């Protein structure tokens, strides 16, 4: 080891020179760097709370270790299976439905030319720009038991009204519908930007060869969009263990009666935190979310890399 001592010293010196040379740009990056250090990286230490019994007066580091005790409720309770299943299945549905809808819309959007593209885009985007609290209000206008539009409509055509907020099965349709309604404008725009970025020479050459529109979509557009779809997909997978709190809290109106099909991990944690003040189970669940999220994203990326190195995210 002693032989490398001067070498190491030289490298250190060199690095110091680099630091000096890059100091201005380093200084520019400093506010963001420090901010993230405190706001994003420091809480990562807090993940150890999952294995501790947290007491406010003792702080994160001072609290007692309890091993896997905080995870016990997850494995024992019926809730755990429900919230994990709900979170995973809903997220899969959102990813698949959302991607499909956005792809269809962006390809169609590319097919129409002229001024209307902007009008369509703006309209598709509208729901994206309101809060989920408002989405909750809007859903309420449709689903309210007595005067809600849907029930009146059902009565008008001779069917019996429903107490939507007290039922479970309808939410399997309502939530994905609302989710896609809210977010499709954004994903459509991303794919549309991707399609616009495709070199038009491909299409012209295909046209000369007599390719039909459908052939162009399947042979040119979709293959060239593949990297983008994969990036969005991998990032989506990383959040597969995180439920959309706003969507699952405000849209079903936080009504206890529909929890069986609407409750996801995040709403569960929030309820544990706000109603029971149960920080410990919450921390355990949060730990699982973060770690499983990272594992999913890294393995999805590894899988993509194996099939096609070009398309991997990192």
């Amino acid at each position, binding site marked *: 080891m002693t032989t490398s001592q001067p070498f190491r010293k030289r490298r250190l010196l060199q690095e110091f020179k680099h630091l000096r040379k*890059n100091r*201005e*740009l*380093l200084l*520019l*990056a400093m506010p*963001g*760097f420090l*901010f*993230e250090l405190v*706001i*994003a990286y420091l*809480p*990562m*230490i*807090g*993940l150890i*709370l999952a294995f501790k019994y947290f007491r406010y007066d003792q702080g994160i580091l001072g609290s007692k270790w309890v091993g896997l005790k905080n995870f016990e409720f997850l494995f024992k309770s019926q809730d755990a299976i429900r919230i994990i299943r709900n979170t995973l299945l809903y997220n899969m549905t959102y990813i698949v439905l959302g991607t499909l809808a956005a792809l269809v*819309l962006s390809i169609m*959007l590319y*097919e*129409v*030319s002229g001024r209307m593209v902007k*009008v*369509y885009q*703006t*309209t598709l985007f*509208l729901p994206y720009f*309101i*809060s989920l*609290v408002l989405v909750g*209000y*809007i859903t*309420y*206008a*449709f689903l309210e038991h*007595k*005067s*809600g*539009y849907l029930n*009146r409509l059902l009565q008008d055509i001779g069917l019996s009204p429903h107490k939507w907020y007290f039922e479970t099965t309808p939410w399997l349709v309502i939530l994905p519908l609302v989710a896609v*309604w809210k977010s499709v404008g954004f994903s459509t725009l*991303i794919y549309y*930007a*991707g399609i*616009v*970025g495709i070199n*038009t020479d491909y299409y*012209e050459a295909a046209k000369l060869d007599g390719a039909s529109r459908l052939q162009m979509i399947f042979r040119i557009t979709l293959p060239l969009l593949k*990297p*983008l779809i994969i*990036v969005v997909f991998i990032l989506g997978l990383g959040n597969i263990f995180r439920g959309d*709190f706003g969507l699952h809290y405000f849209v079903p109106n936080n009504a206890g009666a529909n929890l069986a099909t609407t409750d996801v991990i995040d709403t569960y*944690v929030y309820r544990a*935190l706000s109603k029971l003040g149960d920080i410990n189970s919450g*921390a355990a669940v*949060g730990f699982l979310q*973060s770690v499983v999220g*990272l594992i999913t*994203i890294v393995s999805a990326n590894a899988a993509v890399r194996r099939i096609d190195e070009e398309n991997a995210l990192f």
Partner: protein
Amino acid sequence: MELALAKPVKSASNWYIHLFFTLICLFMIIPFVLVIAVSLTSENSLLHDGYRFIPKELSLEAYRIVLKSPEIWLKSYGVTIAITVVGTATSLLFTTLTAYPMSRRDFRYHRPLTFYIFFTLLFNGGTIPFYILMTQYLHLKNSILALIIPLLMNPFNIIIMKSYLDKMSVEIIESAKIDGSSEFRIFYRIILPLSTPALATLSLFISFAYWNDWFNALLFIDDNKYVPLQLLLVRILSQIEFLANSPLAETASKLQFANFPTLSVRMAMALVAGGPMMVMFPFFQKYFIKGITVGSLKN
């Protein structure tokens, strides 16, 4: 929209696609129309006829009630506007300051810095450690900073900004350097003015995030002083719900409650709180496609 010009020539006989989009657009807009209609309908008519797209009895009563207690609204509007303005400006600054060195290939640490930011997308401490940090260590419970700080640096926005800056020509920076400009000067005099489209897009996204944020308010704000619009909506909703369902309300407040046009008021409130954003955003539309190029999110 120079991008749109690059499109291949398309036939005009796309009427079926237009029809398809008209239907989709209706599907996007109709929920809003219902909310507007309900807010303009008299309570009696709502109870009788239910929610209708065309009100049978027009009434501005709901708006009158909403505006009757302007103090609450003004305060919440003030909080929301304050966090939106201050938050967006600060966030833009932080985002650009961080994204710019990331985009400079000749910056020795551009890769580690990019990874440092990107990693926060993949992994984080979760809600509870963040909550404890904010309340126990930074002491930001019931502080307006608690509404600004959490949304200040969004890794997605930074990456969008970086990929925009990636396309900027290196020669401009090189020549400015030869002229003896410092990096700060280059950033301030060249980079910022050239990034207007990206800054416009980001300011839209960031301001909308601040305007619509309820989560941090739900977590950190109990004090009535700093209740933003969205939290006010949440509270009013649960209060009405509470009044309507609680047996306690039966006796005392039910009388009052019966005369309180809750259905239309609810929708009127939703519009008062959400309206400004919906009116504003089409004006930013033209920057969208230029600004967002997540396609170059790689690297």
